[in-house]
């Protein structure tokens, strides 16, 4: 009983500490807050089932984030696209001088229009700042494939917004 209560307390602390950050990542993976919270909660339930095998918070976060990507990938494969309506998304002006709000909306739309694998690579590479090798392991592909998907995803973003910095170099 004590072990159970310890586990639940540790899990509760982990959720309280990391939930908001996980939801922000999930928003990028799924495209909206509702699906993002659904994704995070399902991943957390899976993490709780494995809690005893994890080295607590550090491993729990990595495991949760990997589970989120895997789950989102399955949803995509099963044709449930978190990409739903556009009717409330007005057509947005794009350009160097657009306000941040509009730029963010354009980027969000561009991200949502990317093939799933490219979107996942961009989120893991640039938002979570994972290495190509880690991403390749999560997605079950080669580092070269990760690199090409990141390159294509960035090209798609560059087509709709100006991205500062002249270097297209990828960190290894």
């Amino acid at each position, binding site marked *: 009983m004590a072990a159970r209560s310890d586990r*639940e307390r540790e899990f*509760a602390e982990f*959720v*309280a500490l990391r939930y*908001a950050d996980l*939801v*922000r990542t999930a*928003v*990028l993976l799924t*495209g*909206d*807050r*509702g699906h993002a919270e659904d994704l995070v909660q399902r991943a957390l*339930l899976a993490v*709780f*089932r494995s809690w005893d*095998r994890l080295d607590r918070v550090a491993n729990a976060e990595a495991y949760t984030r*990997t589970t989120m990507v*895997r789950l989102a990938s*399955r*949803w995509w*494969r*099963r*044709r*449930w*696209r978190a*990409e*739903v*309506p*556009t009717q*409330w*998304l007005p*057509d*947005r002006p794009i350009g160097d001088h657009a306000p*941040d709000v509009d730029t*963010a909306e354009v980027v*969000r739309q561009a*991200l*949502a*229009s*990317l*093939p799933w*694998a490219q979107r996942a690579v*961009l989120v893991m590479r640039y*938002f979570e*700042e994972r290495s190509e090798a880690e991403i390749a392991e*999560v*997605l*079950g*592909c080669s580092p070269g*494939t990760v690199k090409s*998907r990141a390159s*294509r995803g*960035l090209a798609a*973003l560059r087509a*709709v917004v100006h*991205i*500062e*910095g002249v270097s297209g170099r990828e*960190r290894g």
Partner: protein
Amino acid sequence: MNEAESVRALLVTVAERGAGEQIVPPVADLIGRARRSRRRRQTVACAVVLAVAAAVAVPQAVLDRGPAERSVAPSWQGYPATGPGTAIALAAGRWSRLPSAPIPGRSDAATAWTGTEMLVWGGRVADSARADGAAYRPSDQRWTVLPPAPLTARFGMAYTWTGAVLFVWGGGDTTADGAVYDPAARIWRLLPTSPLSPRTDATALWTGREVLVLGGRSEDGRALVDAAAYDPATSRWRSLPALPAPPDHPVDYLVPVVTGDQVYVWAPWAHRVHTSPNTIHTNYAVDLFRFDTRTDTWSTPELTGDAPAGARQPLWTGREIIVPAAFPYRPGSGPIVVNLRGSRLDPADGRWRTMTHGPIDDRNGQYVWTGAAVISFDNAGAGAVWDPGADRWTTIPDAPRAPAESASMVWTGTHLLIWGELGPPESAGLSYGS
């Protein structure tokens, strides 16, 4: 600021705007759900408790059936009224656990029911693609390991059962090779080179004469709409005409179902155009095509009634196409749609009819045709069964373990077998039937 930092800054802004400021961790709710899930698993471990639970869990409430949907077309009367696959038998079913498999549990495996065995091959365990497989025979409740396949580890492959062999092609790290497994001889045979380019997520369909391989995605994520046919009798491929999507209907993905000689294919598309230098407009819709396997020709069927707004897991009953409830296709993001309903099409009269809303319809469930009914599950283990003659849903006992998304599911003629679990690698499986 270099490019990586700029991209991160943009993504941070998108994430923070999309998530909003009020993010309240649902700690108590998650702990409660975790406890309930744990209790369900413990219930399975105790056969006596399970037996009592199953005996008590009699057919539950009849749900949400409006009088307006009661009209039953003549062809709907022809489904079996008795037998283990009927809604009434399934409503009184119970769960039991499969013996442990000799290979790790997984998702996205190629799965088939041969008539005597459930075959599973490939898929992924956690993050790792697999190249192993096993067969489960319910008659003596035994698993056997499949001989090694001549293919690399993979998931996302096209697969189907031909009546004699399990056909597996593509998938993995965007491959274009494949093999067939003959369970009678317990041997694998490599397929000859296909006319199709490497891809993942293609669909394989057995027409009764050939395996059609359709669609998928290229390595760079582009949706593909070409197709080819493999004849197991001659071991030869032939190219087929590609789906004739109009240029301004760029396809996002394909959802096919085979109905004997005809293949119906849903093709959601989204077309973004710059209507002015600073404005993007998106048109989108779902096109439906039909491919005649006798003449190798595509057409657009002329149908009446309310066509489904989304199609995810269409089923062929032998009489009708059932399109279980699915989120309407739309590119971009927006509110979750609720009160979804499935649709049914009798190809003989070409008319869509709406199905009664079911208890799983808003939960992105999985649907299996039993020969006389549709069983559906959500990923928390709640289930329901749909009677096609009465257009009525009935709840069934919750699964003692929540079936993972992309788990292997087959109907054996008497039982539903589910194998492969979410989370840590486990080789657990379930059987449900009366």
